């Protein structure tokens, strides 16, 4: 299997992107207005705020939480979230005893409908290579120290199944409304590299 090097001259990717867009637009193969729409969707509409709503609902509605853990894709769709990279979503519940964390060692597979596009640390070779080998050390480097009594479970997204972590609800939030809870939930907690704080 030979490798290929389209950018062997090492031109700037910004300039090459502009050139490819021109070439394909001139040939009628892409429409810049459609490109604008894709970009705007992931800049404005689809991001971790979606996942935060799912988590907050699960924290306040036990029946919803059960549906979410049993049939993640359908329960997430109840809130209106579906689409590319979300064909089948499995939700993993973090507890005081078990801490789940998600990685994609082969590329950077990520549950777009609930978390949007992946952040840079998720795409970083250090994360992709080491999370399946020394997760406690990696998590500590990222700011999460886990007790020795916590079981760590690492999920490598190696098929089209996508994983979303349901973080633990922080103590002291018993009186919070669902929308206030959603504001606490971070992208990092829904991948499993952080806990939710107050």
């Amino acid at each position, binding site marked *: 299997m030979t490798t*290929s090097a389209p950018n062997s001259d090492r031109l700037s*990717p910004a300039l090459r*992107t502009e*050139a490819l867009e021109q070439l394909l637009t001139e040939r009628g193969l*892409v429409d810049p207005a459609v490109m604008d729409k894709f970009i705007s969707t992931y800049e404005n509409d689809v991001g971790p705020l979606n996942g935060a709503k799912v988590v907050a609902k699960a924290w306040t509605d036990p029946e919803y939480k059960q549906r979410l853990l049993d049939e993640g894709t359908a329960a997430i769709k109840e809130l209106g979230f579906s689409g590319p990279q979300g064909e089948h979503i499995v939700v993993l519940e973090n507890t005081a005893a078990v801490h789940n964390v998600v990685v994609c060692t082969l590329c950077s597979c990520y549950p777009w409908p609930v978390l949007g596009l992946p*952040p840079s*640390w998720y795409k970083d070779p250090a994360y*992709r*290579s080491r999370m399946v080998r020394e997760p406690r050390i990696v998590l500590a480097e990222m700011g999460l120290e886990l007790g020795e009594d916590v079981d760590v479970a690492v999920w490598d997204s190696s098929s089209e199944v996508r994983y979303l972590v349901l973080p633990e609800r922080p103590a002291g939030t018993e009186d919070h409304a669902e929308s206030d809870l959603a504001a606490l939930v971070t992208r990092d907690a829904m991948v499993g590299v952080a806990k939710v704080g107050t």
Partner: protein
Amino acid sequence: MDGIADMGGSQGWGGASVPTADEPPFAEPWEGRAFALTLLTMGRISGQNLDAFRHALERLSPDDYMEDGYYGRWLNAAELMLLDSVILAPGAVNARVHRNQGEQVEEPAAPEPRKPDYKATAAGSLRTVEAEPRFAVGDRVRAKDISPEGHTRLVGYLRGRRGVIRRILPAALLPDSHAHFRGEDAQHVYSVGFDSQEVWGPDAEPFRLSADLFESYLEADS
């Protein structure tokens, strides 16, 4: 293939990055353009074949994979797919870059495309498989110790390792054949649990590791 993309367990990459709050999806405007161009490019070749895209990524030279950032890598793979299907002529993109900078460079003529004669049977990757799953939850299995020439989602670090079927996932088309436009070969998919010390040896951190593996990647471990 045993390429640069199969990073699981490889060493020498340094420390993990500390997350920052509210990182935007695209650090610079061109990244968004490269993202959208790549998605549209996939649709111009033979449906949205994500596996063919991932195979293009893993065939990139180490420089093209690493040096242009994540969306630069996408751009390079999109261009490779366009070269493979002869929608673009070799050198066309770089020639246009030079022309855009005012240089007198001749651009290659648009070639006659040779797209794969292939169409997926349905959108997405999930499929129905009539045959019963070969393995049941709790079965002991071994990931095959093979090294395919083409695309595969059988990660290198699990080959030859023993695990347990934890969950039966929806059946899906097989990336190994779909990526090459050779058919779907839909199969059952399993979430397989491995003990970290089975994978990395007795001195490894104790933890549970799960990966999603296609039926043909597995054999019974008796």
